[in-house]
């Protein structure tokens, strides 16, 4: 185990070292060496500007994620247990699932303005689908035996829903949320690159236009760290909430 960890660390170190050496040998302007990137990143961490952009981005991604996942979980669970609702809603959802949701952005911009609202709503729309589908399948695949035994022991409908359906759907719901979280960052970044006056996506566009490669890499590194931390946080929550379930991929 330790040997394997050593090999991993070695590979990583080797790649970074190779990159640095290549950079020293001379790469095009738009490729910075790892040491340079780190230096610029640390410098940017000391300035308020980066935090403003990060704050603006998070204020778009997180509300969108919250709205989208909450709606997705609620409607997905509802469609999973109520047949009439399922037959009405699910075909529409599954039919529009492979459609790239980002194409709705121009329309949302018309309806809700070019400010933050249209961005939050498009992020919510993108986050809705994975959680809906996972909550739907999670609720649908609740073992019938469990529902029967709950009924036999005199549980009410709401008790069955709370104590049986929700816990058995929870692992899939978390899997859906994980996909949604990654999507929320992607869509946030896309909307900010297309039109925004703040945020990391805007920062990277601005840096690109003014050939400030250092800022480009700072923005890139920030979004990478944010995405990674969000994913870790979600996995940690899942671990806490689903303690009875073993570790999953």
């Amino acid at each position: 185990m330790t040997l394997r960890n050593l090999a991993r660390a070695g590979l990583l170190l080797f790649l970074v070292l190779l990159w640095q050496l290549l950079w020293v040998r001379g790469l095009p302007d738009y490729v910075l060496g790892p040491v340079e990137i780190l230096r610029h990143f640390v410098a940017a961490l000391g300035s308020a500007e980066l935090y403003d952009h990060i704050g603006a981005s998070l204020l778009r991604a997180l509300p969108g994620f919250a709205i989208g996942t909450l709606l997705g979980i609620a409607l997905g669970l509802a469609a999973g247990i109520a047949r009439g609702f399922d037959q009405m809603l699910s075909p529409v959802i599954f039919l529009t699932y492979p459609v790239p949701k980002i194409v709705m952005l121009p329309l949302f911009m018309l309806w809700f303005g070019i400010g933050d609202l249209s961005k939050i709503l498009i992020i919510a729309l993108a986050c809705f689908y994975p959680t809906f589908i996972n909550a739907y399948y999670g609720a649908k695949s609740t073992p019938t035996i469990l529902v029967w035994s709950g009924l036999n022991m005199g549980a009410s409908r709401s008790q069955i829903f709370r104590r049986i359906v929700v816990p058995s759907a929870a692992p899939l719901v978390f899997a859906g949320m994980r996909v949604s979280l990654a999507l929320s960052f992607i869509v946030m970044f896309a909307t900010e690159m297309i039109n925004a006056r703040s945020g990391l996506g805007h920062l990277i566009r601005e840096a690109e236009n003014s050939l400030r490669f250092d800022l480009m890499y700072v923005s890139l590194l920030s979004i990478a760290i944010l995405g990674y931390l969000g994913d870790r946080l979600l996995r940690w929550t899942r671990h806490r909430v689903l303690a009875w379930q073993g570790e999953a991929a």
Partner: protein
Amino acid sequence: MTLFLQRMLVGLRPFVLVAVALVAWELTARSALWSPIVFPSLVNIGHEFALFVSRSDRLLEAWTSLYRALGGFALAAAVGVVIGMLMGRSELVAGLLDPLFSGTYAVPKLALFPIFIFVFGIGSLSKVALVFLECLYPIVIMTYHGARGVDRVLLWSAQNMGASRTQILRRVVVPATAPFIFAGFRVALPIAMIVVVITEMISSADGLGYVVIYSLASLRTDRMLAVVVAIALLGLALDHALVILRNRLVYWEKLETYYV
């Protein structure tokens, strides 16, 4: 008779929501409460869509987007399946690459696009490269997952019957992994479309994403919505084609989907 009516109503249920939405849209468009730029009538959208399908220069834009999406996807499929297989069948490769893939999984690769523009130019290549990168992850992860979980008993019995390593790979590992590979493809294909449209919206002079942004900028929202419909239909058609291909190749395992 009532039973028949009831059955018909149940059969029509899937269309209720769509019908209600379309009628509400048309009523809003006709109500003149909003400008036709905000809510163009369905008739105009339909007209623009017919124009879109019948004009060759517009179809060329669709083709541009399609070949970017499919090109990146095909590359990712070829490379991703090989990497996933290697990771699934070799402890060493998995140990080296797994942290790399799971560590950067949640990072939006789209952030690399400005750098890709500098490296690969502003044309198709930077877009194809980004599609490749975004599609690679789901394909690798699903293939890895599948190849790792090949039933050990099957491998042992193949070995016992004297199968060579290549035979085991071809006859046991690949078929056992195939459903997972296709599951990865199915996640990756819509991603390919998304990435192409986004990158074309950000910086391009051709492709469907560009037409969307251009129509919006010239306040032709009916045209924009017609293109949105075209993109949606294209995404649906690609998904259907993939499912049909999958059911042909992986005929021994039924795919559980809602609408196919």
